[in-house]
């Protein structure tokens, strides 16, 4: 009896590296996630309940409950930014979905198999470039006098446009850059989705004399609708977070017409140094993005049934 107990104790000691293995393997990742994500999140929740301005002495910091949230929610700039961000996300994601599907269909056609690899490689490039860099390039393209877009429009006799100076065109410009940067992602996922459509079904429909449109709307689209819903939900939550492109392309101008939720919060916190209100805004922003992602996920599940 005693002997076996001693034995098992010794075995346990010899065995400890094995038992510690899960902890050892998980430690680096979990420590990083806790220290750099969870702790800051909790701290930010605390900051959001304080009257906290980094330009003021620390003795002025005090608890004000939910006032930061209320102040942020009643701000007219915040409402304006909220409306524009929704418009932007809706317009960009619609265009990306249509264009992405169209290009994916073209690449998937048996007539383009020979060179689809090359096109795919070229389409990957915009997605890999830093949003700030692509916004910079587009800003050069949209320059009023020497920009190539306006010069080309002039050459074609269409007249130039004040791209980044007028509200309407500035909004269009921002949406174009977003479409340029994000459509490649849609193309790739749709292309993967199209590979899952059974080709016998398409062939059979064609033999029965269905037109290309009928084949697309009655066979292909229903077959890939889950992928479409998934891409839309991912792209919507990404588009609502837009920040880099706005900061570089328009910086909110003209006026504050292209300020998004993201840039408004950033400027509240770091231009006006009101990090209490900025934190509160950031959590409101998080709730909005999650709500959109969640609703689109429910929508997706319902359609999957």
């Amino acid at each position, binding site marked *: 009896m005693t002997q076996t107990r001693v034995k098992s104790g010794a075995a346990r000691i010899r065995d400890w590296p*094995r038992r510690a293995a899960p902890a050892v393997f998980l430690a680096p990742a979990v420590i990083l996630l806790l220290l750099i994500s969870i702790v800051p999140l909790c701290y930010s929740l605390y900051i959001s309940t304080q009257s906290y301005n980094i330009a003021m002495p620390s003795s002025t910091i005090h608890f004000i409950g939910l006032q930061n949230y209320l102040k942020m929610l009643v701000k007219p700039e915040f409402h304006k930014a909220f409306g524009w961000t929704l418009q932007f996300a809706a317009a960009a994601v619609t265009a990306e979905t249509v264009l992405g599907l169209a290009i994916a269909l073209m690449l998937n056609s048996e007539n383009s198999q020979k060179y689809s690899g090359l096109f795919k490689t070229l389409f990957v490039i915009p997605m890999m470039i830093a*949003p700030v860099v692509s916004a910079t390039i587009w800003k050069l393209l949209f320059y009023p006098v020497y920009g190539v877009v306006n*010069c080309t429009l002039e050459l074609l006799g269409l007249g130039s446009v004040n791209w980044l100076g007028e509200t309407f065109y500035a909004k269009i410009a921002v949406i174009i850059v977003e479409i*340029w940067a994000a459509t490649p992602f849609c193309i790739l996922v749709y292309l993967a989705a199209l590979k899952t459509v059974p080709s016998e079904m398409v062939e059979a429909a064609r033999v029965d004399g269905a037109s290309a449109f009928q084949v697309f709307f009655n066979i292909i689209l229903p077959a890939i609708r889950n992928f479409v819903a998934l891409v839309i939900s991912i792209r919507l939550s990404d588009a609502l977070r837009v920040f880099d492109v706005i900061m570089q392309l328009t910086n909110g101008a003209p006026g504050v017409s292209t300020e998004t939720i993201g840039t408004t919060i950033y400027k509240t916190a770091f231009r006006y140094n009101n990090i209490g209100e900025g*934190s509160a805004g950031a959590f409101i922003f998080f709730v909005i993005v999650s709500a959109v992602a969640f609703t689109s996920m429910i929508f997706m599940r319902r359609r999957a049934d």
Partner: protein
Amino acid sequence: MRKIFRTKRAGRVLLFTGLCLCTLFFIFPVYWAVSMSFKFKADILVTVPQYIPERVTLDNYVEIIQKSNFPIYASNSIKVAMLTTLICVAAAAMAGFALTRFAFSGRKTISALIYIVRMVPGLVYTVPLYVIYSKLGLLDNHAGLILAYCTFSLPISIWLFLNFYEEIPREIYESANMDGCSEYRMFLSIALPLVLPSVSVVSILCFIGAWNEFGLALTLTFKDQFKTLPIAINSMIQRERDTPFGSIAAAGAMSMIPAIILSLTMQKYIVKGLTAGAVKG
């Protein structure tokens, strides 16, 4: 028969033209930035654009390399992106192994933790990280930036590794176990070599993520000597009243080098990583 052949051929031409037009939209800005970077100033500021440069020069590159801090920014970016990739791939490879190999209590908590970090927008972290880093003296410090980038790349990296480890048959581990192989040796000499192609997928995503990051770097770095490329390029266009088209194009072109090289050579891995990551996320 001949008619069918003809319509088929017309369709093929139409398809090819359509694809070329779309490619033009996606590639022209990149082409324009690169070609502009090789143009003389006099050839840039013209109202009839030279779609194909008539003469080329390296002046713009010489200018940004010799007369600006560009080399510092570039080496900062290289350093930050490479260290982020190294640390993130190592941590994610280990965590993914533990999550697929062992059954232990707290597995669900860790999966939830990963999911939360994935969902929270980066902007939410800017304020608390700024305050915490300023108290710890980590502002204007690459270590702080690298640790943050690692953390935000971890969720997707761990998910990708999970997919890849799950493809390894269990029997391999079992027979290694019989031979008295420890979990640590199993990870290093069995699991890791088997998922090596996946390591490249995760590395590309981590590297590009860190190389391209802007919002956090903007809040956490202030001094020129610590800035990364996106921050430097952002300030190039705002500071000067007279926009230095050529220099900006050259800086932009050089910062696009990793993206272009990786797209041209590792297209398959990128597609795999992005689609798998998206579907999982």
